[in-house]
């Protein structure tokens, strides 16, 4: 009787120490962990998180036919719970027969112009954010898993180079804050490590949902550098690098940030 119990204890002790070792090795934190308890509660409650308003709007758009083809997203893809589960976790990716990566918003617009024969949605437009939020919501709490596409390696290198390159009048690089000084304070705010787990994100400052590109643009302007165009290769390269840097962290979109 005693032996199996003892064995089980051993296994448990081993499992616990293994888990501790794993947890101790990964020093990555998301902005969620640095938020106040009140904001965390607001983000977790799906009826008080304003991002869910966009998810709800996205659900309507998903089922609504559009363009000359008069097809809805749902006509090809069906329900997001099955077809889109984990999709947001592996974007940006390089589509078939293409050589440049697209992020999820770019992918949505490819479907719009290709399959639906409709006009592409404008960056940061409510409709694009709503569809992005709806599709990303289907991957909530799944780990970020960038694709093992060898063609992405070059883009990732470019992203890393941009991340560590000083620019702007303040002569700062992304890494100066988010690698070297993360966890310290910039004015009253805690500097996050910059993991894009919550995008599209609802920022109290914006009072609306915004994409990762809008957030990157914010940072670039804060460094007093010239912001890139929304469809620039630079933002995509940064997105590819950031998603790889956050590999394994759980998606919490639509997240809330101050």
């Amino acid at each position, binding site marked *: 009787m005693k032996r199996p119990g003892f064995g089980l204890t051993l296994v448990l002790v081993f499992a616990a120490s293994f888990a501790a070792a794993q947890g101790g090795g990964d020093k990555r934190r998301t902005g969620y962990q640095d938020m106040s308890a009140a904001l965390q509660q607001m983000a977790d*409650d*799906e*009826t*008080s998180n*304003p991002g869910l*308003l966009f998810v*709800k709007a996205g659900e309507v758009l998903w089922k609504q036919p559009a363009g000359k083809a008069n097809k809805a997203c749902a006509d090809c893809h069906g329900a997001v719970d099955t077809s889109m589960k984990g999709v947001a976790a592996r974007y940006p990716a390089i589509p078939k027969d293409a050589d440049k990566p697209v992020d999820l918003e770019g992918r949505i617009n490819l479907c719009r112009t290709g399959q639906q024969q409709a006009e592409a949605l404008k960056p940061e437009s409510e409709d694009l954010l709503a569809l992005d939020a709806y599709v990303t919501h289907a991957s909530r709490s799944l780990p970020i898993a960038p694709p093992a596409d060898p063609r992405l390696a070059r883009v990732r290198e470019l992203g890393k180079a941009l991340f560590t390159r000083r620019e702007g009048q303040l002569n700062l690089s992304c890494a100066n804050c988010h690698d070297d000084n993360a966890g310290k304070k910039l004015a009253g705010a805690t500097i996050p490590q910059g993991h894009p787990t919550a995008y599209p994100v609802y920022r109290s400052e914006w*009072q609306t949902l915004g994409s990762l590109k809008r957030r990157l643009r914010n940072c670039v302007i804060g460094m007093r550098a010239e912001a890139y165009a929304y469809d620039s290769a630079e933002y995509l390269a940064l997105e590819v690098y950031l998603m790889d840097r956050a590999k394994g962290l759980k998606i919490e979109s639509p997240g809330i940030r101050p």
Partner: protein
Amino acid sequence: MANALINAPKTARRGDTIEIKALILHPMETGFRPGTNGTIIPRNIIEKFSARWNGEEIFAMSFSPAIAANPFVSFFTVARESGRVDFLWTGDQDFRVTESVIITVT
């Protein structure tokens, strides 16, 4: 694209105090901010929010321009009888959204 999220219990015991939360998508434009071309963006806010339980008003409030976008309202009420709670938001530029929930009181 006007939509709202209501969080209310589906069932309640008679006499219980219950919390109802209502969140709505709205820009709450103050009417004091200049736009990119320098002209003032016209005011566009929700003016009134009300909740009626079986037709009887249980909660109402007026909004002001200082309230942030996508207002979230939480209030408490006493469950008396089963029925429908109707929510109504009205505001500038003919804004009008209704939403309802059914609460069963046992």
